[in-house]
């Protein structure tokens, strides 16, 4: 218990420091002004959300091949936490876009594919509520998770090719794009803080799911007696 409180305190400090960095250390962007500071929350949450879905995918694969319930618990924890971070992305995006682009939403490749990604994992969690038998639920959701993850690059490709009036991506974009070195540092630190927060949340959620799984096993045994 003590360890958990300590870990939570460390994460709290890291996220606080990241916020401090975003507000006071990073330079103000020339054209967008202070509103651009939401970038550090927005982009680091996006990367963290994707990391969560990637962990979920690995856990799905391991469950299908090994059939140990731990991987199922990990997959649902990672998917839920990834979904929360992606929700942050989808909410912070329009808050940023409205003053800068003059609109809340545009059907651009990144926005649309993030939205589809969010829908896919929301359906992943929904599927879990609709299959009762635990082994079957674990297997089916793992398989759907694999299909969904395989689908993500295809969704992105199709939308990027045909449905976009795309502004050059700032990070890893073509020539003419790029960030001030201090901005890079703050961004990476924010990502690190978000990853720490993700790890903390996944661990807490995993323990909850494990307790639930064990309870289910005991209950089944009790019913069999």
């Amino acid at each position, binding site marked *: 218990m003590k360890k958990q409180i300590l870990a939570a305190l460390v994460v709290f400090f890291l996220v606080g420091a990241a916020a401090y960095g975003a507000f006071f250390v990073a330079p103000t962007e020339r054209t967008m002004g202070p509103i651009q500071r939401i970038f550090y929350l927005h982009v680091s949450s996006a990367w963290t959300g994707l990391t969560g879905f990637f962990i979920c995918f690995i856990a799905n694969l391991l469950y299908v091949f090994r059939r140990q319930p731990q991987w199922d618990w990990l997959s649902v924890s990672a998917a839920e936490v990834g979904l929360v971070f992606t929700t942050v992305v989808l909410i912070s995006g329009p808050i940023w876009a409205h003053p800068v682009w003059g609109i809340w939403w545009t059907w651009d490749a990144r926005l649309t594919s993030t939205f589809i990604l969010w829908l896919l994992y929301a359906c992943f969690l929904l599927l879990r509520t*609709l299959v009762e038998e635990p082994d079957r639920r674990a*297997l089916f959701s793992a*398989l*759907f998770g694999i299909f*969904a993850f395989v689908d993500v690059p*295809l969704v992105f490709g199709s939308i990027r090719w*045909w449905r976009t009036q795309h502004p050059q991506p700032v990070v890893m974009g073509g020539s003419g794009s790029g960030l001030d070195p201090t901005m890079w540092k703050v961004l990476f630190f924010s990502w690190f803080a978000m990853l720490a927060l993700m790890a903390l949340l996944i661990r807490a959620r995993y323990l909850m799911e494990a307790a639930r799984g064990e309870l289910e096993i005991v209950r089944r045994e009790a019913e069999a007696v």
Partner: protein
Amino acid sequence: MSLLSSTGVLLGKELRTEFRSRELLTTTVVFILMVIVLFSFTFDPTYTESRRFGPGLLWLAFLFAASLMLQPCFLREQNNDTLSALRLSVADPFAIFLAKLAANTLFLLFTELLMLPVFAVLYNVPVLPVLGQLILVFFLGSLGVSIAGTALSAISAQAHMRELLLPLLLLPLLTPVLVASTQVTVGLLDATPFMEWKGIGFLVVFDVVFLTALWLFGEYLLEE
């Protein structure tokens, strides 16, 4: 028996089952017809608008119809308790999926082609000059829909609220198919028709990727 010959036998069985009742085909045809007519009320399709919006709503109608049509694919086996027998009858469970998805592709393609002249007349778009290319897009699109749909209908058949679940799982997964097939169809129905080969290539990639995924993981979908 080799994979192909057992797939052939199972495909024959799927087609026979359907042609005895013709339930799926008739309901799907009527459903697509209804959607096409209802869509025309939401906007007044003039000549240019039909060319711009027509392909999108045609593909939406196909996707909605498919998400309903694919429901009974595994549910039928479950209700008749024939899934175990089916699994015992073939060495490779992939044959079951191949047969079912081939049957579903044929059913979808058949209904789509039946609805194409109706769409052309109601929305006033000429389809005859590009019929061959349209059939190619319809085939590749329907194949993608059937591959993903057959896999997911094996999942949804064993869940609660399965009628709602299948469209929920299927539609977001099929976004790439919807986007690519719509783009190709828009090009073909343009005032100066052109073939968007990039879209065709994309559909082929989608089909191959999902067929491989189904080949690798399909057997787990049929576990008891």
